[in-house]
């Protein structure tokens, strides 16, 4: 039985990126600090993975100010949502194949 590992998205190999994407799938927008708290990640780690997702054009970034504090919000793009669904499908496929 051939296992479709090649269908898995390289961009989601990292667990944190996959987690960021799952949050953005069910929330229209999510801000940096809430993400940090929810995922229990460090500033640098989270920022670098967000950057990677942005580079893939899976998420879009909205920068604004709340008073004097910068407030950065993230939103999943159509391309990102599609990639996430395909990745999940691939994961499911792997599980199914291994059960047989």
């Amino acid at each position, binding site marked *: 039985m051939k296992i479709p*590992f090649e269908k*898995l998205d390289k961009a989601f190999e990292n*667990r944190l990126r*996959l*987690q960021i994407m*799952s*949050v953005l*799938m*069910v*929330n229209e927008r*999510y*801000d940096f600090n*809430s993400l940090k*708290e*929810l*995922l229990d990640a460090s500033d640098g780690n989270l920022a670098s993975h967000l950057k990677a997702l942005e580079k893939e054009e899976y998420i879009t970034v909205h920068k604004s100010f709340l008073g004097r504090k910068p407030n950065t919000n993230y939103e999943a793009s159509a391309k990102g949502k599609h990639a996430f669904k395909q990745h*999940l499908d691939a*994961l*499911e496929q*792997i*599980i199914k194949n*291994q*059960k047989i």
Partner: protein
Amino acid sequence: MKQNEIQDELTSIRSLMERSSKFISLSGLSGVLAGVYALIGAGVAWWITFGSDYFDQLNYTAYNDSVNGPLHANWQKLALTGIIVFIASIITGVVLTRRKAKQKGQSVWGRASRQLLFNLAVPLVTGAVLVLVLIFRGYFSVVASTTLIFYGLALVNASNVTYNDVKYLGIIEILLGLLAALMPGYGLLFWAIGFGVLHIVYGSIMYLKYDR
């Protein structure tokens, strides 16, 4: 990647999707207690309105908007009773929900809870202001139904960011409120059912379903 690793990954995704968009630390026990406070409050309100004439007043006809009626004479005391019940319920809810959130490792003051409060507050504040207007204009007989209807709307509005069960509680509250509007003499009775009995029943269901 091994199969159980993938399973873990999928489980973590599912839990994140829920935790990031819903506030799932609402305490069922606080619902039960809020219901108990409401029943006590309804008893006090009955006693304020009818006092020692208890058995003479079982026909409820005294429950109307007339200037000589007991509602007009006692509305300050009745409003105070309602406010005390409301505040006691809120405090209980906050304390118990905090405790549960701690156990679940969810922050009490996060995105989801802010969204929940906002969704609750819009209909609740609207209803509260409308009730004040009704009281000052002397329309006491529709106050009970108005509070029930707006509370129900608030619950339906908030249900998309917490347990889905809250939606059905909201719909029942709205129906009770409409029924109460049709039967103006029985406001207190509907109020006791809506805020007392229903909270106890629903709180128990939520407690058994999610808290244990």
